[in-house]
């Protein structure tokens, strides 16, 4: 109303109609369209990637995702490395939740060499702990980060601080802040340090407080509600068509969670139920993630209560320098904060893998799905849509 009074409200009727469809050749020389590159050097994109947008006025009519800016050729590099050398390389495949990569590569090698039964109990619980901590630190960035895309920076400030506390715990447990290199084929690389559980509990209490506050700040916020509700809606029939997984699928009521569907480690001994919502828009997805935040905190508490006090951390295995795995192939998956995260692993009987292929959820979310979802969206919402799909470029290009 005010806008109209001041004359800012664009008269939609005067704009040319949206004639272009995805796949059509858009003739830029017709002067009806403008091309915008969002990224790679743009604070609004998720990491070092780019989206090429064709816009008509404020509306996107065509989008193309460009990746490869972070391409390091991991899959090629791991083919050159011994089985034990794979995990420091693989962990860098995704910086947002690095532990998932080490778990995958360790489990693949264990399954193919037959040592998966030999992994000690203690190591399994510690693996779960580090995976859940990784999920927690990812969510602490991700949930308020969605608010950040709508210019709500305060939640990010809180979230990043709390994430840092979890990184401190990681540092105590694993010896590193971000690239933990903790889960290795056969086990893990250390027991819990003294007093870890108490300090973790302190942090979890802070996070409990944060969860309440972020709810008030984001989900009861008129701006957030107005912009996020109804935006970038995923419908249940899209889930299989696009291969949507994780919170993006759960946001529209399709309950898929690898932890429940294919229980790995000791997830079958934990009491949890993956949260879902029905709307499928950005608000619903963020709401699911917020519930997941509560659940992850609870899971960490459960794990710390149920895990044994002491035990072996690594299985007895052959000399790592000449470890050979017979010919075989496998696919291992886990539930990362972004959804099903898997690895296809092929061995050929030598001391090095034949092929390693990572299946990141962003591979489908950020290319096929994002490109289609951006059509018709406002330019100002592009960033929000990218973040809501949990785009993580390194796992696309690897």
């Amino acid at each position, binding site marked *: 109303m005010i806008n109209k009074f001041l004359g800012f409200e664009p008269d939609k009727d005067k704009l040319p109609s949206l004639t272009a469809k995805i796949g059509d050749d858009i003739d830029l020389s017709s002067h009806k369209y403008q091309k915008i590159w969002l990224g790679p050097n743009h604070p609004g994109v998720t990491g070092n990637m780019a989206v090429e947008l064709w816009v008509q006025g404020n509306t996107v009519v065509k989008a193309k995702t460009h990746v490869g800016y972070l391409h390091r050729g991991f899959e090629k590099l791991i083919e050159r490395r011994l089985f034990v050398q794979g995990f*420091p390389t693989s962990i860098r495949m995704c910086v947002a939740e690095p532990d998932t990569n080490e778990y995958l590569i360790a489990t693949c090698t264990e399954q193919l060499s037959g040592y998966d039964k030999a992994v000690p109990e203690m190591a399994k619980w510690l693996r779960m702990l580090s995976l859940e901590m990784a999920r927690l630190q990812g969510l602490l960035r991700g949930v308020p980060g969605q608010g950040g895309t709508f210019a709500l920076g305060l939640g990010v400030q809180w979230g990043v601080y709390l994430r840092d506390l979890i990184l401190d715990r990681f540092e105590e447990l694993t*010896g590193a802040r971000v690239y933990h*290199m903790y889960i290795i084929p056969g086990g893990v690389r250390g027991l819990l340090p003294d007093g870890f559980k108490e300090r973790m509990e302190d942090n979890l209490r802070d996070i409990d407080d944060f969860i309440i506050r972020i709810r008030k700040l984001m989900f009861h916020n008129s701006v957030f509600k107005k912009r996020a509700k109804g935006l970038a809606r995923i419908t249940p029939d899209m889930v299989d068509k696009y291969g949507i997984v994780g919170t993006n699928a759960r946001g529209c009521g399709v309950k898929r969670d690898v932890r429940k569907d294919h229980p790995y480690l000791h997830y079958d001994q934990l009491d949890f139920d993956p949260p879902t919502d029905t709307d499928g828009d950005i608000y619903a997805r963020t709401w699911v993630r917020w519930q997941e935040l509560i659940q992850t905190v609870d899971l960490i508490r459960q794990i710390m209560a149920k895990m044994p006090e002491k035990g072996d951390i690594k299985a007895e295995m052959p000399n790592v320098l000449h470890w050979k795995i017979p010919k075989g192939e496998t696919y291992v998956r886990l539930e990362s904060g972004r959804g099903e995260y898997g690895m296809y692993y092929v061995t050929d009987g030598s001391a090095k893998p034949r092929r390693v292929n990572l299946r990141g959820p962003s591979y489908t979310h950020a290319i096929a799905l994002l490109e289609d979802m951006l059509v018709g969206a406002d330019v100002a919402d592009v960033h929000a849509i990218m973040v809501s799909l949990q785009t993580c470029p390194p796992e696309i290009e690897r």
Partner: protein
Amino acid sequence: MSLKDILTPFTAWSKVVKEPVTIKDPLNREAAPRYRGFHDNDIDTCIGCGTCEAICENEAIDLVPVDGIETKDGDSGLRPKIDYGRCCWCALCVDICTTNSLRLTNAYKWVDTDPDNFRFVPGVDEKDWYKREEGWRKPEPNYEFYGLKRVEMGELHPEEREDSFVEMIKGYSKEQAEAEADRCVECGICTATCPAHMGIPEYIKAIRNDDLEEGLRILYDTNPLPEICGRICTHKCETVCTIGHKGDPLSIRWLKRYIADQNPSEKYKKILETDILKKNGKKVAIIGSGPAGLSAAHYLVLLGYEVEIFEKLEKAGGMMRYGIPEYRLPYDQIDKDVNYILSLGVKIHYNVTVGKDITLKKLGEDFDAVFAGTGLHLGRSTRIEGTDHENVYQSIELLRKITQGEEIYVPEKIVVIGGGNVAMDITRSLARLQNQKYGKVQVIATSLETEEKMPADREEVIEAREEKAIVNPGWSPQRIEIVDGKIKGLHVVQCLSLFDETGNFNPQCNMENKNFFEADMIVESIGQGMDVSYISEDIKEHLELGPRGRFRVNDYFQTSLPWLFMGGDTIQGPDVIHGIANGHKAALGIDKFLIGE
């Protein structure tokens, strides 16, 4: 949307009164105690084995020589140099470090303007973080990257073996050998210590790859007696094995034996590609068919020489056959190695004593060169009171008689003087004979050296005790008590030290602490001397003498008479592997002398 949605976010203002979470001094913040920061290395413990280099997936580690660290047995003299333009701080190098010398401190700050500075040798180049105690060390417990426990070798049980001369070590099966070979980290430190410089990591690798023919080829590159060495080698390599710093050293000897055992002798020529050998028309004579002589013969015949061996006794093998009891080295295994060498075209004359049946001078005239590997076949005496009694024997003499199948005098109580491997051999042989004869054992082996310093291999002592022989070291023999012409026993006093400050042999004894070992028979086994009676005086005067009464030879075991080469126990050792190494080197020396470079 309601008014509530507009007002609720303002609750965030309640944080305004909270204490800020900002770290006051972030530049001096300590990292966690387990943090993987910059490297430190205890260079005195480090042996430069290069395992850290092998496991580094980023090729961040170089091995470089360091001032003040010498290359010696068991220490390559190299130390890791780390390139921080490569490192990813995964600490695999720390986890696999064979000596636990490498670690990561929790220091993490290094800012520089010159990219070439980010390389350093931890523990050597001055860095301010070495004093930090915190940091990453190898995780505990039971966190190992290679097996620390040796694969158990199957042995005959003491009860089964104590009265028989059947070989007591069973040998590895394929699975056992591969499991044991898997523990090797391929550093190659052992190669320098092996007198023959065998390609140990290479043949262990051949076992891992299940390519035993390749393994045999590697063995024969430097050692033509693998069956023998695989059983009785003194395995100096195992004393420096890097795996031994944290766990049991690799049983390199048994692995060598495994390769030799698994290859049938009739296939040797095909595997080793020695069906057809070229000839160069020159002739070499070899005196003695011990390890040195056989080794020299083998490499000479490969080089194209016509080789003839002159052996005093009725069978080839020298001390290997006549000095080592059958339960350690069965005669058919000696035959396997010897027959292969003979099958290459080496001629051997048995029962020919040089100096008696044929003179050395004659050999020198008939042949282009002569190699003498005559060995130490004269027993040494303690020369204490009573050693001239008829029931005081030399061990070497008894062992030869046992091999030759002669009946020897075995009374109920025996004392053996000596703490070396030969003493253990005779002790255990006599114990077996006693068992066969009386059904019980009473042999006492005593030596000057204390238990820790006994020159015999540790397992020999343990096995001797398992066979109920008594090993009681640390006593200095004083006199043999003889009553009515019969030996009653040996008087000993406690021995305190063997060498004085200058390192000369000068035993110090505690005369107060006495002991008496009852015996009907005394065996002396305190070392052997060489018999040089085959060298006539006119030749001897041309030969220069070196230290410890041995003849002086050059690097190629050439004496001052250019056509005469000498090697084996008379020059170095005494053990088999030195003999083999000498023979090989002398063969090359003869080739150099006769044909030139």
